[in-house]
């Protein structure tokens, strides 16, 4: 292991190019931003992918913003409706033109955002801009089209629900959150999905609230220039009118005792999902970077827990753990696929023991530095195409509104100390905020 130490110095050479300032950043390409007068942020990252460009639009609205009862799953449903046409490009025509771009185009929704993406020929960039600008400003689906699309969402729920993990996640969210909209999944409750065809008026309201320039960011990565991207943004999005809606999401009440949910399921590997309440994402505070580094140390294949529970004792098929990045405080989740259901308590105790230990015993300098290298190298190896860079930038954009957050976050990883991690462990690994979900053949959970 001694040979690893000088290597730490070399890592800087791996992912660096461009200007000296840029050299300090995890992303070796400049992030060029322009805020338009209407509030729309336009981000360009020139990248050497000859003839290819990724075009992303992040809308900072997701299931978190479904604040009215009976409308769970609506942000996701609305993402579907965005493919249902405008006056200029009605449904059928929209599909034709989209096909003519030759792009890989789709969209997806999660807790905090809805993401629309196309990757294709850079020479189709103007057409991509035109198509997206038209539907973002002039979406005009029919009532009939609205009712019909709801069945596709029901189909999506139907296929997803075959997974016990998906079923458990729905229960964990509703158990862990009593006030906050994180209490329901992005997919939403089945009863609300079945009722979606009756919610046409609400869908127009949803569009008017969130499909606005101040909620949106355009990200273009690839064989492009900032001048060209900005000119296209001005041409096609310059007249987009800002809105005034401010999403008021209820804060979650403090949790004072552990909660449990269980799914009885024979013929499926027993599973345990241990969840603590975590922090909201921040690129300023050190608690999330400290948790990220710590969770890698605690739950990766390098970790003592993995070596003991998976390799040596073989009581688990896999373990994983981490804090999910989210705009409001969400969950730090630790999952374990347990070979025998009767070992669940033992596995839980071992995990808790490791977490308790993290509160009082500082991790040694070597594992901390190796983990920082690991995070940095993992990122550097992954950004070899415009799509993966656009995906990464999108994630930090929906979290903070600023894609530069990606560079600040990785800079923060470098600063994490053993004390930061002990402090985060003490603050967040508290038994009273636990929600434990289990799947096993037994009638009730055996874990305490």
């Amino acid at each position, binding site marked *: *292991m001694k*040979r690893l130490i000088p*290597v730490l110095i070399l890592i800087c050479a*791996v992912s660096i190019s461009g200007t000296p300032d840029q050299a300090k950043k995890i992303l070796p390409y400049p992030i060029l931003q322009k805020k338009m007068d209407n509030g729309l942020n336009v981000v360009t990252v020139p990248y*050497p*992918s000859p*003839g290819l460009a990724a075009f992303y639009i992040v809308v900072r609205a997701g299931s978190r913003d479904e604040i009215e009862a009976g409308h769970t799953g609506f942000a996701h449903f609305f993402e579907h409706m965005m*493919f249902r046409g405008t006056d200029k490009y009605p449904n059928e025509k929209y*599909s*034709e033109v*989209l*096909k*003519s*771009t*030759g*792009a*890989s185009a*789709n969209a997806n929704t999660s807790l905090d955002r809805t993401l629309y993406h196309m*990757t*294709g*020929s850079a020479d*189709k960039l103007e057409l991509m801009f035109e198509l997206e600008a038209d539907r973002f400003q002039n979406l005009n689906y029919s*009532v009939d*089209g609205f*009712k*019909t*699309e*709801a*069945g*596709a969402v*029901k*189909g999506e*729920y*139907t*296929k997803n*629900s*075959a*997974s*016990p993990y998906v079923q458990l996640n729905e229960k964990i969210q509703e158990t862990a959150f009593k006030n906050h909209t994180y209490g329901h999944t992005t997919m939403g409750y089945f009863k609300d999905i079945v009722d979606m*065809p009756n919610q046409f008026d609400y869908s127009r309201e949803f569009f008017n609230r969130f499909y606005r320039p101040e909620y949106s960011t355009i990200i273009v990565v690839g064989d492009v220039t900032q001048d060209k991207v900005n000119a296209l943004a001005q041409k096609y999005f310059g007249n987009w009118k800002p809105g005034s809606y401010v999403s008021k999401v209820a804060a979650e009440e403090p949790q004072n005792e552990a909660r449990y949910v269980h799914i009885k*399921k024979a013929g*499926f*590997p027993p599973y345990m999902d241990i969840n603590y309440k975590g922090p909201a994402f921040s690129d300023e505070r050190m608690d999330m970077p400290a948790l990220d580094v710590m969770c890698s140390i605690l739950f990766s294949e*390098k970790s003592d827990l993995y*070596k003991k529970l998976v*390799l*040596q004792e*073989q009581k688990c*098929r896999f373990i994983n753990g981490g804090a999910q990045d989210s705009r409001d405080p969400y969950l730090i989740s630790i999952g374990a696929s347990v070979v025998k259901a009767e070992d669940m308590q033992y596995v839980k105790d071992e995990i808790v023991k490791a977490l308790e230990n993290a509160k009082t015993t500082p991790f040694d300098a070597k594992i901390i530095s190796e*983990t920082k*290298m*690991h995070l940095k*190298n993992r990122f*550097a*190896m992954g950004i*070899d*195409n*415009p*799509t*993966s860079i656009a995906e990464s930038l999108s994630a930090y954009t929906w979290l903070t509104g600023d894609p530069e957050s990606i560079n600040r976050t990785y800079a923060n990883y470098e600063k994490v100390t053993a004390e930061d991690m002990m402090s985060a462990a003490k603050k967040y690994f508290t038994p009273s905020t636990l929600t434990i979900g289990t799947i096993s053949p037994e009638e009730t959970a055996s874990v305490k």
Partner: protein
Amino acid sequence: MKKLYMIPAAVFCLLALTASAQEVVELKQPSSNKVVVKLMFRNGSISDPAGKEGLTDITTSMIADGGTTKMTKSQIDDALYPWSASIGAGVDKEVSIFTFQCPSAYMSQFYPIMMDVMTSPAFSQDDFARIKSNQQNYVDEVIRSSSDEEYSKKALEDYLFRGTNYQHMVQGTSMAVKSITLDDVKAHFKNYFSVKNVMIGVAGNYPADFISKLKGDLAKLGSAPAAIAQPVKPKMPVGLQVEIVQKDNALGSAICMGFPIDITRSDDDFAALMVANSWLGEHRKSYSHLYKKIREERSMNYGDYTYIEWYDNGGQNMLPPPGVPRHSNYFSIWIRPVQTATGLKKQYQELSSISVGHAHYAMRMALKEMQTVIDKGMSKEDFEATRTFLKSYMKLYIQSTERQLGYLMDSRFYGRKDYITEMNALLSSLKLDDVNAAMKKYWQTQNFYVTIVTDKSEAEPLKKSIEANLPSPMSYSNVLKGSLSEEILNEDKSVEGYSLNVKNVAIINSEDTFKQPEHRHNPEQVTPEIKSGK
């Protein structure tokens, strides 16, 4: 080009020759920050000995996820961690591929580990116990209880290839995995992971002498003659041969249908069939025809797609991954889960009297639309639009370094140099008549293997409905029915009674799938030459 599996003796010679010369695929990228090495062995699950199905997969896992004679699995994990280097393995029917990735800056340190992993696996009892237990768990439980879509696809392969070496899942069968021993693994490694049947692929930023060193060091692999198992040709079904897999608490009916086709990427005709397939059912694209008819117009499910070759893990992948080249192909239709009668009755009071959900209707719609395009051909406009789309879209298959290398190696498998570039040229010279002729030559709708994974409450009524070709009127909720056009409702009438050439419908209990091949009934089959009209 001729289909390779039509001339098995010639295949053997060709493969042996290229293998002994250690075929190398290079993709030098001096600006890259990493090195990707892929080793493709010409043995996949079809090399599994009878009764030891799953052995190739366990063997590759023991190599990629176990220790070496110098380092334990744990020590390897420790070494790779700071570099974020990775060692992975994937097995398909005809190939096993190991993929090694590491930042260029650490390659000199990673290299000896990589070579030990590949040439000196420890095959320890501890690693074997862990890996075998996980694989047993997969075939016993995971495949049946995690995704009904994936389940229906694997069940279709089990049905379509029944009685051939393509039948069993890569992971094996319940009884076979139980019987695999550590000695089996050691022998399999020695006999099949030979220097004689490996193709080397290297991409990224690596030193000038890297390839020659790698080739030299791989000589430490066994030198057993490359005993490449030959893919056995599946047989055409006689009529529609349907297996309904029933399980508890399934919310929908997941449907897969397919029949063998004598065409692969080796054939120039593949470009023509690719255009037809993209128009009818491009994977996860809203502008493909079946998607429009079943999902967009009728709100029946999440999507409906067609395939002219295996598409690995389609539920997760938006673009086709490399690493699963095959000589035995089949055409397939994937209809994502549609509603069951039990589900619809719970959701809508007005549907309280129905006895069958939407599966039968969806099958009819898909086959009717397919037959229509075979008979009438594509329009000139659709042909041009689809060809233009594919020429651009295929370039997206190879965005990353790893995918570029993977596609180049797959190209060699098919006797091509660069599939993406060559297919682009073939698409450019393609004519509408070529596409319409290819559909008539390779497609038909009278003979299909069909698997449907569904709820126990749906299985028997669905069986009766399909078996007797009973009418299957669409059961829309009132709220949806009121929003559908007369045109769609009229079209429904022509679909609900569309006659399918059903010959056999069987119900299988979920617990009985993927146990042992010989315990299942064999469908009525004929040779493909007769039924495909070739």
